[in-house]
Every structure is written in structure tokens, then in C-alpha cells.
């Protein structure tokens, strides 16, 4: 299974940086996320995570988004629901979610997403 790395660019700050590493079973999502078609962007990442869970039975998702729009939140919800299902089936799923400490609205959003998906995350103010 190959690593998946999507680097961000100053010209397109609405795409986050993605680093999915097979050796550490880790997927990192960093930056901002408010692109036109969130589903299209996140599909390969969700597929990578699913393959990781199928083949290794473990994943660590590290999210460090300082902003995501409602379109992204729909897609992240689907990803979290998938992780919740795999955890129920016995997979080792860890979620670390960092957020700017001065942004309580974002923290509320993250908590709502996790609650809706039925999965807990370790929230880290930064």
C-alpha cells in the first residue's frame, strides 16, 4: 500500500495538506478546507483510510484544520461514521483533533461532528 501525500499551495489555500503514511498507519489533515467539491477531494483519502483498516486493522487520524466549511463537514462526518463502524468491529481507531484555542465555535463544530458520528476524539487546543 502506497503513502498518499497531497501538498497544499499558497495559490489554493482552500485545500488542506494531506499526509497518509502506511508505516505509521497515520493520516494527517492540516490547514484549511473550504474547496468547491469536498466529496471529490476527500474520496481518495477516505479510500486510503478504509484500505488501511482492512489490511492492518488500525489508523490514527490527526486533524489540524483551522477552518472547514459546511461542505467539508458533511464529508468529514461520513469519514468519522466509517471510522466508528470499523472501531465497533474491533479496529484500533485513534483520532486527535487540534483546533485554535481562540475559536470556541470551531471546537463546538468538532464536538458536534464526533457526537453525530458516534465516535470520540482527543481534542487538543493549540
Amino acid at each position, binding site marked *: 500500500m502506497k503513502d498518499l501525500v497531497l501538498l497544499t499551495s499558497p495559490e*489554493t*489555500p482552500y485545500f488542506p495538506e494531506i499526509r497518509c503514511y502506511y508505516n505509521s498507519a497515520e493520516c494527517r489533515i492540516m490547514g484549511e478546507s*473550504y474547496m468547491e467539491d469536498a466529496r471529490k477531494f476527500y474520496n481518495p483519502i477516505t479510500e486510503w483510510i478504509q484500505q488501511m483498516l482492512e489490511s492492518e486493522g488500525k489508523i490514527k487520524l490527526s486533524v489540524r484544520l483551522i*477552518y472547514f466549511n459546511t461542505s467539508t463537514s*458533511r464529508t468529514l462526518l461520513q469519514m468519522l461514521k466509517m471510522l466508528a463502524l470499523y472501531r465497533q468491529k474491533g479496529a484500533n481507531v485513534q483520532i486527535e483533533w487540534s483546533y485554535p484555542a*481562540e475559536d470556541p*465555535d470551531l471546537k463546538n463544530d468538532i464536538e458536534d461532528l464526533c457526537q453525530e458520528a458516534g465516535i470520540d476524539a482527543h481534542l487538543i487546543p493549540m
Partner: protein
Amino acid sequence: MKHNSSTTPIMSYQGPFFMDLLAATSNWIRSSMLFHVRVKLKVHKIFIELTQNVAHYSAERTDTGTEIYGTCGLGRFDIFTDEEYVYIQTSNLILHEHGPILAGYCHQINGMEPEQLKAFKAANRNHREMKTSAAHIGLIHVGIISEQPLDFQIEEKDDKFSMFTVTAKVKTTEEN
């Protein structure tokens, strides 16, 4: 609510709502507006949701000249302030038949308490049956973030189109 003699303009734009333009403006809001950081973050979030609704759903469209982005909605945004609030306003053309739907959304949002709005947003997160429903969750989110009623107007322009103007406001003294 319209910008008037008792309000101070901060920024106005009329034309195509290109993603790059919205990204640059949203960065300016967060970095350069002279308000408390939490006020700026709220204005930024509201600005993105309202302007992306225009970019995606305005009935008046232009070709972006790129294969990836296809067409882009045209409209207008205004950011202005008075002593109490920062106002974020967008206007765009809509088809007549979308007017009552959008008006219904705004009335629904304005009639809800914060906890009801959160539950309503959760219920709508997976709802994508009609073109305006994605705009719906954006408006619900704006209602949650602003913690104030949405102001809106629908003005008939011709036999096919109306102008939809929506204004959200954020308290300038936000420190929660």
C-alpha cells in the same frame, strides 16, 4: 438592513465570486480587520458560507475559464459596521421558484433557539436532495455562528429572476 449613513463601509465587491477572490478576502478578514479575534473568526466563517452560496447557486453565472471550476456565480457582497455589529451581506439572482424556499429557510432559522439550530443542522447534514438544500445547511451554520437573526429580502427583477439579499450580523464586542 442596508449600508446607510449610520454604518461604516469596510469592503464591497460586485462581480464573479471566484474562489481565489474569496480566499484572499477571507484571509484579509482574519488578519487585518480591527476587531477582537473571535469577532473576526465569526465574520470569516459567515463570509465564506454566504459567499460560497453565491458562487455555487447564483442564477447569474460566468465561465471561470478552467475545467476544474466550470462556472462561477455572480453577485455582490458588502461588509459594514456600526457601533454594535459587523454586518456581512450578500446579494445574488435566484429563480423565482427558489424565493419561497429560501424565505422559508430564513424564517425557520430565525424561529429557533441555539440548541434547536444545532439539532437542525445535524439533521440536515446529509440532506442533498435539491439544489438549494446545500445552501440551507450553510444558512443554518451562519445562524449558529452569528447568534443573531438573519435579515433577508427577495426583490423581483423580471419575469424569471429575483434578487436574494441576506444579511448576517456579529456583535462587535464578542468576547465569549
